[in-house]
């Protein structure tokens, strides 16, 4: 076996092992901690699969923002005694799982080892698409409707989580000094990193979603450190949350009214349009994810 395939096998085993640990640990804390580790291992797997964009996103979202959300759930409630599923259910579940896995393993052996139609199509059309980096071109031009709707999913998830908060936001508690100190260092670093990912995204891996996750991280840190602006669920915060979707729809409607067709970007200004939409989207995603975090935090802090 070559060193490369040893690495592949070890990596595959690691992913499976961490996934098993994450679902098997009976305590919440253990499960969440193992899930954070899964995010790290997955980021490595994505890197190994030639997908640096996804490695970035996994590091930022999968183990970053989602990790912070899950961890915050743990600090909110003391661990609860876990009820267990009945023995019959476990046996049936395991059997069904084994059968499903065997069937799927047979199925995926039939996957043809040849590329799909799309990489060639992307390579052919990427000039004038507004971004030299293929993944960004797909997200912001070829399949821009998906990206718009995905931003909308975030907007409405934030609205839904926000609707669960039925109490006004409480004044922040006193913050421990180490947290404030850490936040002072971390905040500018996160914003800088996010901006870099945003600007880099048109020509190399990176883009609105990774940058947005960094901005969300910055806002979460600010919120945790007691900054009032980050705790707000007011009109301005909600306006920023929806700004990305509205900017995207405005672009779509604008191109339609100009007679080019919905979301059709003219190669002459496609680059500018892509960067503008990405910038608004990144800020919007950042605020939106942070709003989900704040809503979660407030859903717990109901005054007694």
């Amino acid at each position, binding site marked *: 076996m070559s060193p490369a395939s040893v690495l*592949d*096998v070890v990596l*595959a085993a690691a*992913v*499976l092992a961490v*996934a098993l640990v994450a*679902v*098997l640990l009976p305590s*919440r804390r253990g*499960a969440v901690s193992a*899930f954070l580790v*899964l995010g790290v291992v*997955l980021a490595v797997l994505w890197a190994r*699969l*030639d*997908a640096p964009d*996804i490695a970035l*996103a*996994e590091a930022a979202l*999968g183990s970053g*923002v*989602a990790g912070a*959300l*899950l961890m915050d*759930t743990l600090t*909110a409630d003391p661990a609860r005694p*876990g*009820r267990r*599923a009945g023995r019959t259910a476990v046996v049936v*579940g*395991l059997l069904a*799982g084994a059968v*499903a896995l065997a069937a*799927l*393993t047979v199925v*995926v052996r039939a*996957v*043809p*080892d*040849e*590329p*799909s139609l*799309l*990489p060639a199509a992307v390579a052919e059309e990427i000039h004038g698409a507004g971004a030299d980096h293929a*993944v960004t071109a*797909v997200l912001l031009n070829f*399949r821009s409707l*998906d990206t718009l709707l995905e931003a909308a999913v*975030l907007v409405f*998830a934030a609205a*839904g989580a926000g609707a669960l908060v039925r109490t006004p936001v409480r004044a922040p508690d006193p913050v421990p000094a180490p947290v404030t100190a850490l936040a002072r260092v971390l905040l500018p670093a996160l914003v800088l990193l996010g901006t870099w990912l945003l600007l880099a995204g048109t020509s190399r891996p990176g883009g609105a*979603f990774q940058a947005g996750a960094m901005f969300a991280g910055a806002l979460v840190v600010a919120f945790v450190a007691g900054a009032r602006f980050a705790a707000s669920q007011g009109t301005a915060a909600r306006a920023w949350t929806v700004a990305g979707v509205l900017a995207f729809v405005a672009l779509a409607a604008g191109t339609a009214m100009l007679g080019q067709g919905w979301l059709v970007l003219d190669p002459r200004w496609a680059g500018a349009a892509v960067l503008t939409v990405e910038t608004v989207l990144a800020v919007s*995603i950042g605020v939106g*994810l942070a709003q*989900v975090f704040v*809503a*979660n935090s407030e*859903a*717990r802090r*109901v005054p007694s």
Partner: protein
Amino acid sequence: MTRLELLLALGCAVLVVGLVAHLLARDLVRRVVALNVASAGVMIVLLVLATRGTEPDPVAQALVLTGIVIMAAITGLALALVRRVEAPEDEEAP
């Protein structure tokens, strides 16, 4: 077993592990975690499909990126609901 088959099988295994755990777990946070594990399994399958051919498939990668963001949003909503479910009775009244 080729690398493609190995990694595709890995994706399926992670998906099945996540789904079975999701259906069997009673603790709500653990169910959310298991759902995220299952989703990671599907993402593995998609990204492995993207490695066929000489260049990585940007479209499949874009799909995964979209999927990850959606899953993060859904996790946020799910956790907010978990908190609401576990809030003491008297806090339920709006």
